[in-house]
């Protein structure tokens, strides 16, 4: 019997990070399957350990990024997604997936909007891991770098809310050099259960050490931080304890 944690990736028209994300999940030990949204039925979701909304675009990001995908999910899968969450499932949204989760109201209230300069940001971002014991982040050090690539990634919320998310531990990742002028520099959020997790940076794009822009990067001899991101949640779902040989990483 297959014992690997099972992740399904929902693919909308325009999703373009699904293959990379599936490969990252498989590399970390998951059994991963990409499912076109139209083919997803209740049983598909309820049989998974984790549902992933990968990055890219969805339905052209018309109206606003993630809106049409949110509406499609709510009208087609909301009941089965609710059961999935009640049964302890994990929900991960990366970039456009984060935008969809925000629109669905599954993460603390706020929105992801266009950058003040109106430009698409495609660069590396230095991030602070604010929840080092979180199932998605426990194998990562306090400071990491990951690529970002988005036009609508600026987190905004009603006055004071963003700061409260940081204080309450709901902001899991923050930008060190606020690349998109997000409130409280928020780059990633979790819900109160910790099982819904959204982030703008792309961990799947830093799976291998060789993907780092600096050929002399010394954070890890083989892997990028993205690997440890997926490995963290894999080991959580597989019921494995922290790898004894895993060192605390620094990029000094």
């Amino acid at each position, binding site marked *: 019997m297959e014992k690997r944690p099972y992740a399904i990736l929902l693919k909308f028209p325009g999703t373009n990070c699904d293959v990379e994300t599936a490969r990252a999940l498989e590399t970390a030990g998951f059994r991963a399957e990409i499912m076109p949204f139209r083919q997803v039925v209740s049983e598909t979701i309820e049989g998974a350990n984790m549902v992933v909304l990968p990055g890219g675009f969805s*339905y*052209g990001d*018309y*109206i*606003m990024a993630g*809106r*049409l995908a949110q*509406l499609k999910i709510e*009208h087609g899968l909301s009941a089965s997604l609710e059961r999935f969450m009640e049964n302890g499932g994990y929900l991960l949204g990366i970039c456009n997936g984060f935008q969809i989760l925000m*629109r669905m109201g599954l993460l603390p*209230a*706020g*929105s992801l*909007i*266009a950058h*003040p*300069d*109106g430009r698409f940001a495609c660069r590396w971002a230095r991030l602070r891991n604010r929840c080092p014991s979180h199932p998605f982040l426990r194998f990562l050090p306090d400071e990491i770098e990951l690529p970002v690539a988005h036009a609508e990634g*600026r987190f*905004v*919320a*009603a006055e004071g809310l963003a700061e409260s998310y940081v204080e309450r531990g709901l902001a899991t990742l923050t930008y060190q050099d606020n690349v998109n002028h997000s409130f409280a520099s928020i780059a990633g959020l979790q819900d109160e259960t910790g099982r819904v997790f959204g982030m703008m940076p792309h961990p799947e794009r830093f799976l291998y050490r060789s993907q780092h822009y600096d050929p002399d990067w010394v954070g890890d001899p083989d892997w990028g931080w993205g690997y440890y991101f997926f490995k963290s949640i894999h080991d959580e779902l597989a019921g494995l304890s922290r790898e004894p040989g895993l060192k605390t990483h620094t990029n000094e």
Partner: protein
Amino acid sequence: MRKIVEIHNHFQPAKDASNLLYTPADHGMTYRETRRYSFQYSGSDSALLDFVQSVLVDPVSEDLHDGPSPCFKDYIFHLDLMLKPSLLDLEKEYIRNYVRDQAYTDWTLDELSVAHRYYFFGKGDITPQRIARDMVNPVIHTWNIVYGTGTA
């Protein structure tokens, strides 16, 4: 019946209008962008407004301006940019398909047009003609420039 709504993001600051041009201009003028939807519909006005609020507006970051009047004042001019009616406007089609799928009983959508509106403010050397030259692709766009009450 016809209903026009305009949506703007209140977190977005006014941006430097020279960024919209291909060639350098002074930095005295700014612009704000909105989305403008024109519905030809039958049925309940409040039901249509509910649809607009729930589907087209982000409740956290956006404000809805209900009616044909411009949602900003004191602008020098504004540019409305639309795809030509003969072209496939995917935003319009996605909205129409969504409305069709929902099968609303209290209103029906007969026609929809979507425009992106750019309001220009302040003093500078950016003329409507220059904006149109650089922003409009005459092969695919229709556009409209309207002067406001602001002074250049």
